[in-house]
């Protein structure tokens, strides 16, 4: 089987600070990591590969430094890594990102499963996976916490807020994986050394892809960011300490006064 895993290099948001003046993220000096749920996606591919054999290809679109994220994925056990990097890809929104990744997937050719993280911790939209599936016209199952391959289909549990849904999809398909799905393995020391000394990260630029220039990068992004700001911290919560019945009544009246119910 052939698995494609999409990984995004993101700033480690636990150490990110925001420039008070511009409202932008201060990215300098902030360590970057593989988007956590992309590690879950890779782990899912690695354990499927252990069962069914095959090849795992990781792809990332990003600046040349995203090489580090791909090497880490190689160290964890991916077989092949592709970095989509070109100034022309910069400034992409989720649609342009999905389109570019999709063009790379088409260049790769045959595959059985694409695994994405559910959501990136920086952009946070959870849109790239679904858009990529739409672009490639393959079935998608999002928010997956369990998955398996049975005969020629993938069976997955989708984790929704109030329920778990079991889905089946024919292959090839695209799944977005949540952090509940597994505990990603550590790269081994052997894997780490090989990732840098034996393996390669292929670099694909715009010219390597059959791509419509108007649909990539900033130009190809219909979204424009109007304003970036840090939301004011919410006011202090209030605790209503009356007897349950009275508390409920007070709460009801407050909510009604605010037109919430």
């Amino acid at each position, binding site marked *: 089987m052939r698995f494609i895993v999409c990984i995004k290099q993101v700033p480690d948001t636990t150490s990110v600070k925001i420039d008070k003046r511009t409202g932008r993220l201060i990215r300098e000096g902030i360590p970057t990591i593989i988007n956590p749920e992309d590690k879950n996606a890779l782990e899912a591919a690695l354990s499927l590969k252990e069962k069914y054999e095959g090849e795992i290809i990781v792809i990332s679109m990003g600046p040349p430094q995203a090489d*580090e994220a791909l*090497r*880490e994925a190689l*160290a964890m056990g991916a077989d092949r890594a592709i970095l989509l990097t070109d100034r022309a890809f910069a400034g992409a929104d989720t649609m342009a990102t999905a389109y570019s990744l999709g063009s790379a997937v088409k260049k790769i050719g045959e595959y059985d499963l694409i695994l994405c993280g559910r959501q990136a911790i920086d952009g946070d939209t959870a849109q790239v996976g679904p858009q990529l599936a739409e672009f490639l016209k393959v079935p998608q199952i999002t928010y997956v916490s369990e998955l398996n391959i049975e005969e020629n289909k993938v069976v997955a549990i989708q984790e929704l807020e109030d329920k778990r849904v079991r889905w089946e999809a024919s292959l090839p398909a695209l799944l977005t994986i949540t952090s509940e799905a597994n505990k990603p393995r*550590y*790269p*081994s*020391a*052997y*894997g*780490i*050394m090989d*990732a*840098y*000394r034996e393996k390669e990260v292929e670099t694909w630029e715009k010219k390597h892809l059959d791509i419509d220039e108007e649909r990539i990068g900033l130009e190809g992004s219909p979204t424009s960011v109007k304003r970036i700001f840090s939301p004011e911290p919410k006011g202090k919560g209030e605790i209503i300490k009356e007897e349950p019945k009275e508390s409920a009544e007070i709460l009801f009246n407050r909510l009604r006064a605010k037109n919430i119910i």
Partner: protein
Amino acid sequence: MDYSISKELELLRKTVREFCENEVVPVVEDMDREGKFPEENIKKMAKLGLMGLPISKEYGGAGAGMLGYCIAVEEIGKVCNSHGTILGAHTSLCCMPIEMFGTEEQKQKYLVPLARGEKLGAFALTEPNAGSDAAAIETTAVREGDYYILNGTKIWITNADRADVIIVLTVTDKALGARGGITTLIVEKGTPGLSVGTLEDKMGIRGSSTAELIFENCRVPKENVLGDVGAGFIVFMKGLDCGRLSLAAGCVGGAQACLDASIKFAMNRIQFGKPIWEKQAIQWMIADMATEVYAARNMVYHAIWLKETGKRFTKESAMCKLFASEILCKAIDTALQIHGGMGYMKKFPIERMYRDARITRIYEGTNEIQKLVIANMISREMRRA
């Protein structure tokens, strides 16, 4: 001069750090209280390739070099000296001498499974009458046909009861002593005549086991001589050169952890209406600690560079062991002082780290012996000059 560390070793550092935070930290309190060998974690470390970091890929290692190994030990040193000690005895004192002095057969038979972490190693020098005075060992190895017959007792051997492969220093010619009379042998667990004696109860590094090894007419095949017959002292000195470096790297990690914990505590602990950090008395303690950690780390990395570029580093590795273990003990004492009563409580790691740190001034040669080594090397340089 290039002080940068390669990307692969940075990834190795990050990985070991995550491993320590997620797998080591949660078990250390229990491990320390019960004096329990962290068996599960050693298995996990084996799977991650951490049991053969400096050993070449050809012999089952990760090929991460002395620097990769020491970076890992430094990270482990930040959280647990028991884990560090187990790893150090195995890697520096068992795997590395076999890689340096072993025959091809010995490497295939012993080093490959050791470096893969399928087997655990130990190194047995110390005896009741031979501590600092290593040449005074009394365990004999007498040639009988294709075997050496070993008799004697080794004490305080790290990993002794767990080890599959033990490097043992023996006397093959009493008259020659350290100059040709001492031979190193590789002894396998389960060899008839080898048994494990008392398991020690210790002040610190309670997760690492320290035990007696008893040899009673223990028959070891002659192919198991490591290095040349009579050249045992060289094997052990070269092994210790590496051991002292990795030990020092662990001390740097430990001292760094003391510094980090002290800064965090001092910034948060309010007394007299302000964080204690604002007191100059505390700032000076932390400034000294930070300076010493910086100095020790640079010494260690420099000595690693000497080793990796094939230069002599015996004197420097003794200096690193001496200095790094001293500043670790000072740093943990200062950290405990900064934490006040909190530092004395078993609930917090400072108390354990205080007990764990103390051994670093004793094993792999006491710090007095390091000074002796340094002075000897200086005399030698003077003679040569």
